[in-house]
């Protein structure tokens, strides 16, 4: 009996020696949908990494409150009290920008999950330990423009843009307008306040313009009112195309969602092995399927970090960073590897416009319709609104 115990202890000690342990800070707005999904994804990924046995990641999770006044002290606490060397976080652009100061001060390896604004790219341009996974806003614009080019080939000529007047909606609006006009479109753009639920007046204004495409850049709260009120004022566009970061729960069951198109980085129905694997693992752990692409994004960050730590077989942040820069792996979004960003401002950019796909709500679910190589169904154009 005693012998067995001693053997066990030796075995465990041996395992512990072979195992590299790192503490990782997670700084996310956990009371928002996207932040919660991201956290779930990170935790799921870490579970996978730890199950492999060679690397042990310990998470210290802190709420960034979605505001700089909370996020800055929270990062400080991670760095000085919890003494982590690696931080996963930076979902909202404004918050991430505010973090740029303390990040440079404490010099962690910063794995950035969101923050698409190129203002953030400038803020981190001289920081060498910054790994940005999410595409930048110019990637998002490029992906949407490709879709618009395709629509132009299908006869669309006039675009009405509804954009929310916060940073999310307004950031790319000038670029959009100019680029769409370059493509040959006539454009009319109107701002709105997200969550107001009242679009009839603006949509009535658009009526005289007779748009082929109603393109809205806003949030999930605007989805149903826009779909309903477009019909109610009799706007009759040929396509309602939206780009919110998330869609409302249950929208697909509502008949008003039919034919509405949107852009996302990932759908649970995406047909690649990593995506299927992720969906299964997620369902097993959380008992549901998530639609939020921030969940697989968090998962990918955790997995890639696990690989880098294993390759470095050290908890040193710079050795891990060196290995992370070399990581090449398949993910639910497609292949991941780090390259300098298109503007050359940051050195380690993970994904680009190629992860975006266009989908359409068809018969109660979202189906990829563009680009052609990833489409499950042809785009219904003109749609019926």
């Amino acid at each position, binding site marked *: 009996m005693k012998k067995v115990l001693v053997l066990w202890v030796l075995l465990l000690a041996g395992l512990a020696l072979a195992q590299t342990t790192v503490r990782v800070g997670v700084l996310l707005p956990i009371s*928002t*949908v996207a932040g919660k999904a991201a956290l779930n994804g990170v935790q799921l990924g870490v579970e996978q990494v730890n199950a492999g046995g060679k690397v042990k990641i310990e998470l210290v999770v802190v709420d960034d409150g979605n505001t700089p006044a909370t996020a800055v002290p929270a990062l400080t606490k991670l760095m000085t009290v919890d003494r982590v060397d690696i931080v996963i976080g930076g979902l909202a652009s404004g918050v991430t920008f505010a973090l740029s100061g303390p990040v440079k001060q404490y010099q962690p390896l910063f794995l950035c999950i969101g923050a698409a604004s190129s203002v953030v790219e400038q803020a981190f341009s001289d920081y060498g330990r910054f790994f940005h996974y999410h595409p930048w806003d110019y990637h998002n614009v490029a992906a949407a423009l490709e879709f618009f080019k395709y629509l132009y080939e299908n006869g669309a000529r006039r675009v009405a843009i509804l954009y929310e*007047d916060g940073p999310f909606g307004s950031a790319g609006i000038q670029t959009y307008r100019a680029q769409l006009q370059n493509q040959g479109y006539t454009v009319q753009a109107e701002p709105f306040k997200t969550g107001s639920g009242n679009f*009839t*007046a603006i949509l009535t204004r658009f009526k005289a313009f007779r748009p082929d495409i109603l393109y809205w850049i806003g949030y999930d709260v605007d989805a149903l009112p826009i779909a309903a*009120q477009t019909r*109610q004022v*009799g706007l009759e566009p040929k396509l309602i195309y939206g780009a919110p970061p998330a869609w409302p729960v*249950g929208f697909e069951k*509502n008949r008003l969602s039919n034919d509405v198109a949107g852009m996302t980085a990932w759908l649970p129905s995406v047909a690649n092995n990593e995506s299927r694997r992720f969906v299964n693992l997620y369902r097993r752990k959380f008992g549901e399927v998530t639609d939020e692409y921030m969940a697989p994004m968090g998962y990918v960050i955790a997995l890639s970090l696990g690989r880098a730590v294993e390759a470095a077989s050290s908890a040193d942040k710079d050795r891990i960073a060196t290995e992370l820069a070399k990581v090449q792996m398949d993910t639910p979004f497609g292949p991941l590897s780090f390259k300098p960003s298109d503007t050359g401002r940051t050195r380690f950019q993970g994904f680009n416009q190629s992860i975006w796909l266009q989908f359409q709500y068809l018969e109660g679910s979202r189906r990829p319709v563009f680009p052609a190589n990833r489409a499950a169904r042809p785009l219904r154009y003109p749609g019926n609104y």
Partner: protein
Amino acid sequence: MELLLQTLINGILAAGLYALVASGLALAVGVVGIVNFAHGEFSMIGAFVSYLLFVGAGIDPILSLGLAAVVLFVVGALTYYGLIRPVLAAPELNQMLLTFGLSVALQNLALLLFGADTRVLFTPYQGATLALGGVSFGLPPFAAFVLSVGLLVGLYAFLGRTRLGFAVRAVAQNRLAPGLLGIETQRIYLLAFGLSAALAGMAGVMLSVMLYTSPTVGFAYTLKAFAIIVMAGLGNLRGVIPAAIVLALAEALVSTYVPGGGGWVEAVFFLVIFLALTWRSWRTR
């Protein structure tokens, strides 16, 4: 011409939802003298009642209207009994902080229970459209407008025609020194606060149909509802619908006729309030 007509209709119908949220608030301020920051959270509870009944039991939101009113009446009465009654004698600011605390607690309790997700229902009539000549408008906003007019007319009738109504008005006009509050007065406060919450609940059901359901759904309209009842004159129920219509029309006209006007809607809404308040204050004296 047709555009103008359509714009006017858009504005007037948008006023329906504003007035619906504002009416309950006006009742609480007018009769009990309480500025209830948690009014929006009462609406949020109404929206969740509607959503959960729909998803869980397949009950149509139209039927939930009555149920939500009953549930929220009880919530309102309990709130009055447990929280408001003890502070009736306290300064107005204390009452405000109390209802603010309630608002924070309820909103975050909902967040804990249901998550931050935006949820939508699916009924056959959410996109239903009525067309008359060249103008068209949605059935749900129209229903919300009719509902709020109906409820307010019913409320006037109750206050003006019934014995209990007289008592309510008497109490409202003559807030006795709270130490001397009679049992009768207490009961009327309870009734008024319960009714106020019930109105919020019904507004919440309409929100769940026309917009969405989430822990923060109450907030957007409550801020504007506050502004509306202040513009109408605190406690003046009759002023609620006219004030809502003026403001909603201002919003609609700006959005439709001014390029980029959608971004100025909030500013115009509050500018009208500001001008109305200051103009009135300088005129009367």
